[in-house]
């Protein structure tokens, strides 16, 4: 039923196609990558794009295209795992806050306020300074700091949904609170969560790129769009391709997710008439 609305929305289709392509590229990276991303070739250092290396080589002679393809995997992995964690936390906290209201609601919302007041990026940097950089840390910390908007959305849905009569009907056949929360109300509350998830992935990809660029995220030799940019920054006068291509990749990927997210939101919004 929602598919029809989704199909009619050009934005959503465009976003969907792009996201799908990016996914395909990331998954197929080992197959379509022309070179091994980590092979050092000091004879071919800093070559501009040519017929052998379509996107050029970096300061260690590694093929940029191959590194970008594998970097895509990192970006996607971080995006989905981190936001997956965030969404899970957000759903649980939001559901309980919205359903029980009262003290639990206040406590959880104050916690949300506290978390929101902390600048995420700096929190990430602090944690990484203490614990050390790495892919898993990045995923977990982004996850633990991105759940707040989901929680608010879910809480808002629950506040209205719990007064619907089907909840009373479920109680009248003997359903327990937990059952009502997760089996009855939650499926009805998921629409804004989907949108939030997609947009969250875009944000997570940006954050990971930023961290890797600064050297706090994915460590070389593992390729990430961010850490290709790190090298690019040093050689910006001689190797524009090290900046342009990862930069474009981040831009296009983030944009695709945003477009898809907006498209889904428009498709799901009952007030917008397509």
């Amino acid at each position, binding site marked *: 039923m929602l598919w029809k609305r989704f199909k009619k929305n050009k934005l959503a289709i465009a976003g969907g196609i792009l996201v799908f392509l990016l996914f395909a590229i990331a998954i197929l990276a080992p197959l379509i990558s022309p070179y091994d991303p980590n092979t050092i070739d000091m004879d071919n250092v800093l070559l501009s794009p040519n017929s052998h290396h379509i996107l050029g080589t970096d300061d260690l002679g590694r093929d940029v295209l191959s590194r970008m393809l594998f970097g895509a995997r990192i970006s996607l992995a971080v995006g989905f795992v981190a936001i997956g964690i965030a969404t899970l936390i957000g759903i649980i906290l939001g559901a309980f806050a919205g359903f029980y209201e009262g003290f639990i609601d206040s406590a959880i919302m104050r916690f949300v306020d506290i978390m929101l007041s902390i600048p995420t990026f700096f929190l990430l940097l602090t944690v990484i300074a203490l614990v050390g950089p790495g892919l898993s840390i990045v995923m977990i910390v982004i996850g633990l700091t991105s759940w707040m908007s989901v929680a608010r959305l879910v809480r808002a849905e629950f506040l209205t949904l719990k007064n*619907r*009569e*089907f909840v*009373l*009907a*479920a*109680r*009248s*056949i*003997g*359903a*327990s609170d937990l*059952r009502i929360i997760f089996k*009855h109300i939650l*499926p*009805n509350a998921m629409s804004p969560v989907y949108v939030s998830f997609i947009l969250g992935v875009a944000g997570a990809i940006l954050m990971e790129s930023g961290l890797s660029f600064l050297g706090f995220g994915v460590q070389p030799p593992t390729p990430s769009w961010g850490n290709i940019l790190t090298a690019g920054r040093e050689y910006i006068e001689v190797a524009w391709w090290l900046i342009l291509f990862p930069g474009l990749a981040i831009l296009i990927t983030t944009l695709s997710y945003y477009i898809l997210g907006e498209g889904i939101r428009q498709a799901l919004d009952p007030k917008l008439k397509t």
Partner: protein
Amino acid sequence: MLLEVRNLHTSFFTDSGETKAVNGVSFSLEKGKTLGLVGESGSGKTVTALSIIRLLSPSAKILQGKIIYKGKDLLLYSEEEMRRIRGREIAFIFQEPMSALNPVFTIGEQILEAVKLHKKVEPLGSINRGSLLSRNLNAKSRDFCEGIKTKEAVEEVANLLDKVGICPGKERMKDYPHSLSGGMRQRVLIAMALACSPSLIIADEPTTALDVTIQAEILELIDKLKAENSLTMLLITHDLGVVAEHVDNVAIMRKGEIVEYASVEDLFSEPKHPYTKMLLDSIPRIEE
């Protein structure tokens, strides 16, 4: 006496103070009979019904009274114990069928849930289930709601749907609430209420949201099911016409109190309270 309500007082507590919704209501229900609870909007009928199964909103409190069901006072039960009563012993049929059904589940799933929730629950005391089930349900159903396998449960749900007039049950089970008409949805609610063979059914204005011809069909269906299953029913309505044909006894409620309590024949032939007379007079008659 299956159910005895004695001196029930329920009030709502809001910022503006206390609002007495039920003010000293007492009535009793004999097994197999139907009591009609009649009154205008706001007279306290629904609150009385919800008080019996303790599904009131958090701002409401039952201040006093006893609700004796099968010899035990329900007001003394814990929430856990009440959950075992709801659906299993006492079933509730809501007024607005579309609101009462969850839009994301099929009707089969919703009825099945009623069954699953009471699957391994011990019944209250020792109840002779044989008399409650009609000849139409097979003997296995005696163990229905106690350790039944899912496949059998699904079959029973299909049977239930057939019994309430949604045929063929096996296929219609997969329909979603939004693809059904009002009358059909109400039938689904009735099926849900019957799923665990309750002893008492409380129907809160089950036909108010439906048009007159469907109303007649639904009431006929309810009568048929009542007879087949020897059900006891508390029927809430504001429609005296419904009362005239489908209940045994009547309690007229006004502003939280019962002003007249009589058998249906006595009520219509010799109404005693002025309010009752007013209600009867307000029915337009063709001759006038």
